[in-house]
């Protein structure tokens, strides 16, 4: 997940699902669909086997990609074309429409796209429906497989087979304002008030204390009162990911693995258990430590505001780190500290229906959204070239180039990306003090209790329902308990519609249970 | 330059009969005026001839050839619309040129130019040739519209109230010139107007249209002197002809306790008509006269019109101003000149023959 809101807001809502419904809705919504229709010309030409010709001469690879990730593809396009003789046609699709476009294209067998670059959360659904190619037969030729971060590797397996090529790593981490935290006066004041040292929060309670502490006075020195926290609490955006990330510490119990979203034995939703309720209460509690507008912020607006400098704490993917380096919009370059998502000393146990309390902090970093992956369409007529292009995008050299270039929407996902901070300092990002940043990212990716996002089919609907009810609780119209109970209710219905057994089987498999 | 025959033309708009059983026949080169009140069917008749409106029934012949099924563009008619219908994006010259350039006309450029010149001079718009319609006054636009109809030779020229919006001076001079021009071109012309003076002045023959029918088709003199019925009689002439109803078999006219002996009339006579100039008016009691009260007087230059209430009637009298000065409410005496009366039957039809 990178750079721009999860729910991209297109200037005209593009309504592009099953064409016909759209006609009516279009007239009602006052929106107009202008979906680009790429021409498919994926035929393998005779030239492919001729002597002296390049490997994929005359082939055309059509790539469907979420529009804000396109530069991470385009920057390598020309080189690969030159090398292989193939043509690459990039179809940029606004993120909001990406799922529908891919699904429609795949399910109608239009064979529009050879490569889909999309959220790894959808891999299981597409793989199960045989929309995307099992890549096992290609993987032996991949030389840098081992270098991929473990958790990212796992995202690519369905039924023990790999279906994608990784292009991005997504984990949510915490940010704080190093400059404010290291100020002696602040430190003393904080200690006096809360009885412990001011430092990056390790529990959500500390997070809340710090947020409170930095709210309502001018610690940044710009003459206006500042805020303790900034999170993306707006509707229809990244809210569900941030909220799930907060819930993980309370609800991802290492004793009952794979129980963050559902009870893996019954497929009963977990999201209304006291762990989640606590997380929601926390989330509501920090509203008063941020600006009122926080209630409307998506990921993009949150990032833009945070780097403007009036907030002590934030939660986000790797993006805030990169955005803070841009001196044109950021006032906090070099003032940023990082931490693995705070944890909790109590964690809910769905089996005993009680809190497991401990002096150890339960940390459960959250791989929200999972990152951009590329798959080859099952119907592609040029699978070899498609694989080759994806592999090229993920080559050791190119992936490093991509993750250190701003605007590519690709974040580190290979161990080599974390190893050499100097490379980051020298890259176009000109990252200042990349060491701690990379350290926290790497750690978040590799803790034993790091949690995957919900990846079973209909994850979008689960997410939307959760968002709707959580928004109500945030607005104060209903209680947190009520909200999550209603959400759980709706989740049950969605699960039933999709087929409970089928969902359970896949959920268990993806969570590593059997 | 065709003869035209209209045979039992009928035009319905829904249930509304705009033209009913209209018949008319004219020779090549004749100047025909369709005279009638607004709504009488004048414009509709022109549109039927041009096939802008579709006939409900009836036949139209040009030169004895049935042309019912020939589309407008092939009828070779030229038409000036009352609403002008100029091309707003073209100059006056281009507007005039357009009919000459139509496919199949093949008029040499020099002749085109000569025709435009001639028409522009005739209509006094030569100095306006390079302007666009939006830069013209209403009267100028009407002249351009008229010019567009006159500029090319056509089987029939149709002019729908073509000079209605011009000032009096131009109207007077133009109508003579227009007729002269059409005569030179040997053009068959249909011309509509609600103004009887215009009609009698310009027409070879007038067709008086009432309720979508031709009531009388004759030379101006005949229409004026021998109107076919009461309605025709009251359309032609200003002020209107006075129409007096007669009791059945009456031998005298009784008004305001006085009576006038009538000339011998046929038994079917229902009305007599007297033109306003044919009634004498006296300020003092006069033998052989009926009494009336002045309703209003209207002096106009050398003449005056006096309306007099006499019994149920409001009679128009036209006389010289020197006859006397009358004021509203004054009692006067009237004496018709029986030698000039028109006699109509009960249905309003003219009775033939002399009665004096």
């Amino acid at each position: 997940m990178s750079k721009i809101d999860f729910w991209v807001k297109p200037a005209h809502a593009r309504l592009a699902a099953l064409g016909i419904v759209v006609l009516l809705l279009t007239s009602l919504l006052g929106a107009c669909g202008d979906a680009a229709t790429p021409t498919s010309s994926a035929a393998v030409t005779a030239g492919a086997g001729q002597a002296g010709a390049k490997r994929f001469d005359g082939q055309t690879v059509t790539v469907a990609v979420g529009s804000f990730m396109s530069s991470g593809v385009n920057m390598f396009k020309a080189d690969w074309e030159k090398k292989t003789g193939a043509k690459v046609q990039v179809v940029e699709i606004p993120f909001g429409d990406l799922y529908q476009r891919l699904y429609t294209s795949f399910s109608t067998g239009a064979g529009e796209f050879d490569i889909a670059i999309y959220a790894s959360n959808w891999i299981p659904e597409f793989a199960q429906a045989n929309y995307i190619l099992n890549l096992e037969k290609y993987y032996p030729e991949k030389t840098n497989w081992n270098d991929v971060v473990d958790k990212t590797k796992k995202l690519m397996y369905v039924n023990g087979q790999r279906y994608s090529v990784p292009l991005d790593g997504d984990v949510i981490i915490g940010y704080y304002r190093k400059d404010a935290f290291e100020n002696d006066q602040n430190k003393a004041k904080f200690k006096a008030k809360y009885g412990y040292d001011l430092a990056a929060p390790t529990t959500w309670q500390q997070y809340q204390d710090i947020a409170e502490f930095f709210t309502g006075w001018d610690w940044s020195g710009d003459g206006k009162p500042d805020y303790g926290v900034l999170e993306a609490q707006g509707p229809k955006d990244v809210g569900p990911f941030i909220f799930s990330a907060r819930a993980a510490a309370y609800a991802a119990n290492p004793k009952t693995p794979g129980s963050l979203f559902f009870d893996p034995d019954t497929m009963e939703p977990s999201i209304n258990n006291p762990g989640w309720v606590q997380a929601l209460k926390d989330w509501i509690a920090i509203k008063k430590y941020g600006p009122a507008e926080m209630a409307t912020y998506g990921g993009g607006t949150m990032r833009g505001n945070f780097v403007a400098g009036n907030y002590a704490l934030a939660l986000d993917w790797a993006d805030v780190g990169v955005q803070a380096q841009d001196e044109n919009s950021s006032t906090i370059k070099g003032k940023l500290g990082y931490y693995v998502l705070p944890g909790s000393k109590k964690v809910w146990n769905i089996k005993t229906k009680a809190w497991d309390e401990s002096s150890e902090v339960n940390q459960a970093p959250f791989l929200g959204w999972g990152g951009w992956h590329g798959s080859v369409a099952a119907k592609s007529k040029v699978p070899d070239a498609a694989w080759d292009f994806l592999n090229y995008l993920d080559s050791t050299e190119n992936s490093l180039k991509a993750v250190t270039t701003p605007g590519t929407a690709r974040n580190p996902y290979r161990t080599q990306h974390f190893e050499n901070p100097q490379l980051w300092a020298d890259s176009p990002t000109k990252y200042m003090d990349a060491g701690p940043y990379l350290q926290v990212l790497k750690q978040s990716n590799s803790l034993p209790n790091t949690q995957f996002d919900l990846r079973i089919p209909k994850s979008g609907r689960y997410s939307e329902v959760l968002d709707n009810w959580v928004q109500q609780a945030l607005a104060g119209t209903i209680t947190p308990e009520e909200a999550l109970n209603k959400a759980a209710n709706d989740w049950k219905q969605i699960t039933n519609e999709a087929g409970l057994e089928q969902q359970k089987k896949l959920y268990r498999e993806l969570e590593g249970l059997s | 330059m065709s003869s035209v025959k209209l045979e039992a033309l009928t035009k319905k708009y829904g249930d509304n009969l705009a033209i009913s059983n209209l018949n008319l026949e004219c020779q090549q080169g004749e100047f025909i005026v369709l005279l009638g009140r607004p709504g009488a069917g004048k414009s509709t008749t022109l549109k039927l001839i041009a096939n802008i409106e579709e006939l409900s029934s009836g036949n139209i012949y040009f030169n004895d050839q049935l042309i019912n099924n020939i589309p407008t563009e092939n009828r070779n008619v030229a038409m000036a619309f009352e609403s002008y219908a100029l091309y707003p994006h073209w100059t006056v010259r281009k507007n005039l040129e357009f009919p000459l350039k139509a496919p199949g006309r093949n008029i040499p450029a020099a002749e085109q130019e000569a025709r435009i010149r001639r028409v522009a001079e005739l209509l006094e718009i030569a100095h306006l040739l390079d302007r666009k319609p939006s830069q013209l006054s209403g009267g100028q636009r009407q002249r351009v519209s008229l010019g567009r109809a006159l500029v090319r030779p056509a089987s029939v020229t149709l002019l729908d109230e073509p000079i209605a919006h011009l000032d009096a001076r131009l109207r007077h001079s133009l109508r003579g010139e227009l007729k002269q021009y059409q005569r030179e071109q040997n053009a068959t012309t249909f011309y509509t107007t609600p103004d009887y003076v215009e009609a009698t002045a310009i027409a070879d023959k007038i067709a008086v249209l009432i309720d979508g029918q031709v009531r009388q088709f004759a030379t101006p003199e005949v229409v004026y002197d021998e109107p076919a019925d009461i309605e025709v009689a009251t359309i032609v002439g200003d002020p209107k002809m006075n129409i007096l109803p007669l009791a059945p078999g009456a031998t005298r006219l009784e008004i305001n306790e006085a009576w006038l002996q009538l000339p011998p009339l046929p038994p079917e006579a229902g009305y007599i008509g007297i033109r306003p100039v044919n009634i004498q008016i006296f300020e003092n009691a006069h033998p052989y006269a009926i009494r009336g009260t002045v309703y209003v007087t209207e002096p106009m230059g050398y003449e005056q019109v006096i309306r007099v209430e006499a019994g149920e009637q409001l009679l128009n009298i036209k006389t010289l101003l020197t006859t006397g000065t009358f004021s509203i409410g004054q009692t006067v005496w009237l004496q018709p000149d029986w030698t000039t009366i028109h006699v109509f039957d009960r249905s309003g039809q003219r009775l033939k023959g002399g009665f004096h």
Partner: protein
Amino acid sequence: MKHLLIAPPLLFFFAISVIPLLFTLGLSVTNTSIGGSGSFIGLNNYAQLFSDQFFLRGFLNTILYVVLGVTAQYWLGLGLALLVNSMVHGKRLIRLLILLPMMIPPLIVGFVWQTLLDSRYGPVAGLFTGLHLKPVPWLTDPTLGFVSIVIVDTWQWTPFMFLLLFTGLRTLPKEPFEAARVDGASSWRIFWDHTFPMLLPASIAAILLRSIESFKLFDIVFFITGGGPGGATNTLTLLGYFTSLRSGNLGYGAAMSIILLLTVVVLATLILIVVRRLMARADKAGQQALDQFLAEPLPVKVA
């Protein structure tokens, strides 16, 4: 022959309007989702709609947006139109200025208003603080969020009303107004007796157009509040969009569309009826007086 000629356009119309409508109707009685085929579930979707708290809120919101927004836009637009119409100089410039909001893309409108209403940097907040008032959470309080959307919608679409009403005003004959002045009527009376009734046809057209458009309110909400907080500013189109096309619940979304369509039709009809009644009543008073005096013999001699 002539009827044959209009057949192709008719078929085309049928194809682009009736068929999709029927398709949507069909879809609305299934549980089709974007991921697969659905099966017939009768009126379940509709039944569910009426117990769906988000839908009901969105429905109510939509109606309120239409009623409040269009009312505000109408009176403001009318006021501006009258003002500009009475100006002697600078009409062109002021007209252009008034029309500007309408021409700004919704994305920018959203950004501008978010900034204007921001409780930290916004000039509106600045104004409140300047007056020693507490800054108001325009976009984040459920009620105020709703009000803000009405304000922004009004800001953006009053120009449209203005344009229609101004055009309407300019096409009114001048003479009745001069006659009324000579007759001795005050400006206020002239407005109520003449301007307003004579402008009614234009007003009806403008109100109908804006009402139907308002039912489709989408972009401003999408960009400013995203339907929040807690669904307080949701509209039916926004819900329909998210339901059908974001979470792929096509059957349910189709049912929403059908309800929206029905509501638009019913409300537009209602508006027409109400306005017709108004027009009819306007002349009733005079009619009654007339009846009264024609009924009884008069103590005057006819001249």
